[in-house]
Structure formats: structure tokens, C-alpha cells
């Protein structure tokens, strides 16, 4: 579905990813894990054209989408949920979702997508007229995901959805992610929380210093290198 070939990208002329190859197949969840500063978020941002791309190609459904503008990517079926509960805090929950559909002109599709999303996240429906800043942390993260889902994506990019959430809420979010995936949406999830991400993912890539050092299924957790990076203390 999405293929990345020998990608070099970064910020302000400083290369962060040094030739990454990556692939996700339809209806897959792929996790990207790795230590801080390894370039996990940069990989997502490269797909969504939010950083500088120096070489390589990003192919989505046989189309080269490298460096395409955002609205085009959304139309193609890619949606992005940035790190850290990024919402419009002074807009209501409903207005946040409306902004998710900004590039769509069809009001009927918007209404349908919103009611789909509300059935997935009933708490957002209850609070649809509240300002987003009054939501709890978990609800804000759900809203950020919901805002991407109203775009009806085929591929969802999630950047650290569990960041700063209580374990119970985190579990809820991960369950939602699996649920969304079961409806046929491919998901790339970048996580600090390696164990949980690997467990819900079909495959996992491990990034270190801007290169992929390991790729595999759930057995990856048993790999010595992973144990050293993450679970050394356990």
C-alpha cells in the first residue's frame, strides 16, 4: 500500500533519516519503535510532507506522493495525527471535526463521517458542543484521532498516541486503534511505549540513529538488541 525507498530526510539541512526502506500492506498495523531521537516521528512527517526530503521516494498505491501538498495527501486517503494531543482547543468538539473535513465540499459526506466517528467515540458525541480544551487528556487524544478519521483515511499515521496518558486510558486508546484497523484502515503507529505497540502491530520496525536496524513480528520483543534498548533494566 505504502512503500518508502531509500528515504533521506530531516530539518534545516540536517539529515535525520539516512536511507530508510519501509513498507505497509493493506489493513496492516505497523509499529515503529526506537529510542528518543532515532527519527520515528520524522518518518511519519516525511510521509506527510512536514519535513525536508533530500532523496528517496514515497509510493502510495503505485503513485509517487513524495512532497505532495497536505490537502492532496488527505484526498489520496492519508491522515495524520501528530504527537501530543494536537487539537483546536478554543473550538468545540464538533467544530474540530468540521475542520478535519475542511477540504471536503460535500456536506452530506461530512455528516455521515461525523456520525460514524461519534458511534466509535460516544464520549465525543456527548461533549460535541464543549470547547475542546475542557476535555480530559484521553478525550483530547480521541478527538485528535477522530479528526483524522472523519477524513475517511485508508492509511492512518499515529504519532505517539499514548504520550502522557494514564495506563488505563492508554489501553483504551490502543483498543480503539485495533478496532479502527479491523474496519480496514492501515495504521502506522510510532510509539515510545514499545511493548504495547508491538503487541497490537502485525509487524514492527526498529529505528536507531535514523536507520532501520530490525524488522519483524511480535517475536521482535525477544530480540537481544531490543531488550538492551528498552528493557535493559527489567
Amino acid at each position: 500500500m505504502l512503500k518508502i525507498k531509500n528515504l533521506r530526510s530531516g530539518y534545516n539541512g540536517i539529515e535525520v533519516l539516512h536511507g530508510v526502506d519501509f513498507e505497509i500492506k493493506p489493513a496492516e498495523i505497523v509499529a515503529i519503535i526506537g529510542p528518543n531521537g532515532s527519527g520515528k516521528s520524522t518518518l511519519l512527517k516525511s510521509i506527510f510532507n512536514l519535513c525536508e526530503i533530500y532523496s528517496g521516494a514515497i509510493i502510495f498505491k503505485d503513485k509517487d506522493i513524495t512532497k505532495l501538498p497536505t490537502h492532496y495527501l488527505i484526498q489520496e486517503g492519508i491522515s495524520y495525527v501528530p504527537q501530543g494531543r494536537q487539537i483546536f482547543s478554543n473550538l468545540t468538539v464538533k467544530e474540530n471535526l468540521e475542520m478535519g473535513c475542511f477540504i471536503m465540499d460535500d456536506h452530506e459526506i461530512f455528516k455521515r463521517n461525523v456520525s460514524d466517528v461519534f458511534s466509535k467515540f460516544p464520549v465525543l458525541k456527548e461533549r460535541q458542543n464543549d470547547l475542546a480544551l475542557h476535555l480530559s487528556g484521553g478525550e483530547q487524544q480521541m478527538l485528535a484521532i477522530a479528526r483524522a478519521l472523519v477524513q475517511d483515511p485508508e492509511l492512518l499515521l499515529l504519532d505517539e498516541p499514548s504520550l502522557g496518558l494514564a495506563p488505563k486510558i492508554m489501553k483504551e486508546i490502543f483498543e480503539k486503534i485495533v478496532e479502527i484497523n479491523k474496519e480496514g484502515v492501515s495504521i502506522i503507529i510510532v510509539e515510545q511505549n514499545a511493548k504495547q505497540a508491538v503487541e497490537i502491530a502485525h509487524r514492527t520496525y526498529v529505528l536507531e540513529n535514523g536507520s532501520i536496524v530490525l524488522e519483524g513480528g511480535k517475536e521482535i520483543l525477544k530480540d537481544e538488541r531490543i531488550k538492551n534498548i528498552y528493557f535493559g533494566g527489567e
Partner: protein
Amino acid sequence: MFNQLLINGLIAGAIYALVASGFSLIYSVCKFVHFAHGVVIALAGYFLYFLFSIVGLNFGFSIILAIIFASLSGFLINQIVYRQLRKRKAGNTILLIASVALLIFFESLILILFGADVKTIGYIKIAKGIEIFKAIITPLQIVIIAVSIILLVVLFLFMKKTKIGKAMRAVADNKDVAEIVGISSEKIYSWSFIIGSAIAGIAGILVGLEQNLEPTMGTNLIIKGFTAAIIGGISSVPGSILGAFLLGFAENFGIWFLPSGYKDAIAFIILFIFLLFRPQGIIANQSGKGSRVK
């Protein structure tokens, strides 16, 4: 006396509110202080003078053209100056300096074209005031208050109900997320300049009719608009409107205690007090608390 000061405060507040609302709309969306907003006001007044008093066009038609002219000049200032600076990654301080430069540039241009003497549009003959509640108000002043209130209500509904209005609030709130959902912030910046400058144009026309035109009128008004915005909360349009009326009342009731020449001083004193003790204004906006896509 009290009623007269109240009405005078209301008239001043109505004008300041028009200045401050456009100014803080642009500030909240684009996140920099656009002092040249003042000169857009002056440009509208002088353009009306040019069309109506010199060329001799129909009054209604001149007014419409003057509003369009104001809107267009705001739009072009953004496109030609600010946008190019942003492309070169200029920070907000540079944009602020550019806006002061634009203010001085256009004021000088008005000075060269029209001269330093005071101009009168002279459409409305000095009318006898009407007496309401022992206070005197002219028909034009009633029009000023009415136009101001209607415009502010329309602006409020525009921001709440329309797609562009909501997108403006979204960009004001979190520009990075707005980009992620496909809202082009540059386009929304343009919209804020078009709408804010149109309101400034209307303010310029009303001031031009009520008082006179002079090249420095823009600076005088933007100082009041800026003060009003600081009082109310610069990134909140309703806040700055509240601040505008408070400033109008403070200035006019101040005359009770001070000679009327101190009117402007009152505005500055209030500005300093707020900058020192409550720089976020009465209505503090809660957005943008360290929320950035990194």
C-alpha cells in the same frame, strides 16, 4: 452631564471597537502586531474624500469603493510585504518593524498627495443634535453607533457560523494542526487581512465624516485600537471590543476630573497599567499553551 459623557463614551467606543476588532482579528490569526492597520483607516478616509469631494462621484458609490479600496490595500500589504518576509523566515519582531515602516510610509504618501492641512468630506452639513435623556447626539453619531454594533454582530456570526470564519479561528488556535487538516494558513492570513481591513475602511469613513481627515489620523486611531485590544485581550476579538468601549468611557469620564486635553494621556496611562499588571488583558485566550507539532 453624566448622560452626555456616557453617549460621548459610546460614540468613541464604537469607533475604537471597529479599529480594535480588525486589528485583533489580524493579530489573533497571523500572530503579529500590524500597526499599519492604522493607515488603512486613513487611506479609506482619504480615498472617500478623493472620490466624493474631488472627483465628484455619487456618495454611496464612493463609500463602497472606499471600503473595497481599504480591503484591497490591507490584502496587498500582506501579500507584497508581510508574506515575502515570512517566506524569508522573518520573525514577528521584523514584521512589527515592517508594519511601523508601512505606517510611516503611507502617512508620508498621504501628506505628499493631499497636504498637511485638515480636509473635510463635507457630505453631512453640521446638523443640529437631537436631545435624548438630556444628552445631545447628532444623527451621524447615531449612525456611527448603529453601524458599529451591526458590523460587530455580523463579524461575530461570521466567525461562528461560516467555514472561513471557523478556519480563521482554527488557524488562530493552532496553525500547525490547521495545516495538517489541509487549511492553508497563508490563505487564511489573506482572509483576515481582507476582512479586518474592510472593517478598518468603514471606521475610516465614519471618522472622516464625523471629524476631519488629517494624515496622522491613522496613527492616532491605531494607538487607541491597540490600547483597547491590550485592555480586552489582544488575541480575542470580543475582548478587544469590550476594551474599546471601556477605553471610550474612561477617556470621556476622565474629563470630569481632568482637563479635556488629557484625553489621550488617559489612554496611555491605561495602556501602561495593563501592560504592567495584566498584559494578557481582561479576556485571556487559553489557546496555544505550548501546543506545537514538533
